[in-house]
């Protein structure tokens, strides 16, 4: 399936600092159309489109909105999650850098649909330089009268990977230490300051104006059975042309990595960042969709010169450092995993260490409080599955 520009269609075409260039192309038509619709109509349209969250978890966007809309309460919030912390992911940065206006239009429509008068853009601290650009875009949209029904504020993170997790993100916006909360209650019933809150990824919100303007049926035409639309991928690593690519969901990994990014030899590909899945070179015909593997869209390619254990160890060191320290399986488990992987890296592994890794993985996946701990063992499990010989050759 080919490349297709839906989310990125305005990128490089407009001046991100001047709303008039955006208006010349689109004129906030989707917002105008949405505002003559009933909020329930919008939600039904988004539900019908089959749009799923682009931040990694793939939760149906329309259902999330509906849950927040149906929760009683006057105060509701919408959060645009621009805390793009996942390793090797830079699509949201590219989107905001090039087209902040579609993002803002998406926020205004979403806020109107769920009945939120206040919305936040949660920007990761490393993207501080985008703040000025976003603020400029918000104030221009405000001057043009597009933000009458909703106020958009920017909240910056303080440099924690965990704050991309939606409940930790809410704690961070509230000014607390960013740590995941237990669920239920879900954010759509009890979110920011105990009020119903919808948290959507930047790319999810980028899809909204298109769905409203062209209808759910058009959006549904591309993609697979349970993954509709396109996905923006950020490709990095051992490729000739690293960068941001937008592909129809269900495209083959080979198209992205070899045909578009120009990788020569591939040993393994890490899809979805640090907590993503690792696939070996024999699996390049895997399709990229929510049914198979997707994550947040970060794709890191490693060639034959890379050492499996080294990659897994460094990934785990990162996760160990970024664990928030709240729940014991993640806090202590990532630490124990790092120690075992260090043994393998130094050629000092023992036969029972692989068993320990598997035991630890299962505990962390089953018992951790949030997605970080539950997904942290994926690189270890996947590398043990496809590159077990790399571990076994390091057993002394």
């Amino acid at each position: 399936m080919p490349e297709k520009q839906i989310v990125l269609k305005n990128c490089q075409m407009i001046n991100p600092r001047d709303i008039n260039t955006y208006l010349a192309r689109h004129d906030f038509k989707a917002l105008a159309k949405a505002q003559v619709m009933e909020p329930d109509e919008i939600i039904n349209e988004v539900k019908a489109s089959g749009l799923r969250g682009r931040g990694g978890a793939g939760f149906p966007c329309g259902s999330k909105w509906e849950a927040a809309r149906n929760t009683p309460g006057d105060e509701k919030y919408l959060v645009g999650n621009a805390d793009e912390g996942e390793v090797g992911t830079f699509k949201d940065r590219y989107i905001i850098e090039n087209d902040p206006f579609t993002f803002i239009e998406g926020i205004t429509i979403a806020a109107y649909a769920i009945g939120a008068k206040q919305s936040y853009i949660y920007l990761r601290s490393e993207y501080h330089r985008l703040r000025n650009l976003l603020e400029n875009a918000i104030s221009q949209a405000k001057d043009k009268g597009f933000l009458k029904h909703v106020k958009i504020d920017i909240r910056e993170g303080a440099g924690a990977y965990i704050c991309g997790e939606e409940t930790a993100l809410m704690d961070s916006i509230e000014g607390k230490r960013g740590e995941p909360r237990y669920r239920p209650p879900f954010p759509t019933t009890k979110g920011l300051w105990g009020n119903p809150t919808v948290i959507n990824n930047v790319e999810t919100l980028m899809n909204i104006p298109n769905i409203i303007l062209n209808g759910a049926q058009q959006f549904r035409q591309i993609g697979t059975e349970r993954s509709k639309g396109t996905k923006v991928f950020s490709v990095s690593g051992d490729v000739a042309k690293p960068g941001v690519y937008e592909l129809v969901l269900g495209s083959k990994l080979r198209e992205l990595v070899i045909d578009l990014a120009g990788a020569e030899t591939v040993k393994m590909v890490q899809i979805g960042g640090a907590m993503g899945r690792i696939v070996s070179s024999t699996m390049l015909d895997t399709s990229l969709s929510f049914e198979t593997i997707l994550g947040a869209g970060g794709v890191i390619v490693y060639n034959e010169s890379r050492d499996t254990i080294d990659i897994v160890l460094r990934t785990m060191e990162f996760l160990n450092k970024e664990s928030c320290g709240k729940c014991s399986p993640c806090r202590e488990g990532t630490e124990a995993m790092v120690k075992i992987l260090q043994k393998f890296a130094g050629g000092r592994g023992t036969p029972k260490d692989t068993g320990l890794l598997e035991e630890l993985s299962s505990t962390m996946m089953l018992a951790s409080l949030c997605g970080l701990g539950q997904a942290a063992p994926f690189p270890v499990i996947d590398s043990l599955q496809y590159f077990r010989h790399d571990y076994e050759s390091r057993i002394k």
Partner: protein
Amino acid sequence: MAEVKVTINGAQTSGREGVTILELAQENGIKIPTLCYLTELSPTGACRICIVEVEGSRTLVGSCHTPITPGMIIQTHSPKVLATRKVIIELLFASHCGFCMLCNKANVCNLRELAADLDVGLSPFQTRKRFYPIEDNPYIQIDRTQCILCRKCVRACREIAENGILGIAYRSFDTKIVIDNDQPLAQDTCRDCDICISVCPTGCLSKPKKLSAAKTGKPLIIC
């Protein structure tokens, strides 16, 4: 309040709406182990010892914070649950320093009790050890090497004592219980409310030992 019907360890039972799995289990005489849970405090879901198996759930769920829903099928002591609890205790022991034999709280320690229940011996995992200097003032002694970060003291300080002196700082393995903004324990930081000491499951928080140096007055027996 509506009654919610659930199945717990194969037996049909029911509880009030909003009751957690843990509370329902306790009402039915089933003991689910806990480390960070206390009836008087808001749940936090940090220790993950109270996890149970719920049919249809991808992961095990924390029973201390998950309310029952109609038709829930719960296993509190399935092999999967027990194996996971055991690994969590092993992990907590891996970084836990000191010898139980020399610990004041050895016989009242929740961690040690749980380890005995789950047949945990020497931990197979190697992690860094948490070494911190012992801090004390006349009212409280803090030995963070014994801390398992259950955060009962932090919540008790905030919710029961309404002081908010204790807090959590740093991330990941370096997470620790701190006083204010990681200030050293001073003479006037903490007075003798003792609430945090009473909730601590290990030997981390205790009353300072008063050795004979503190005795004043005339000796009782005069030779």
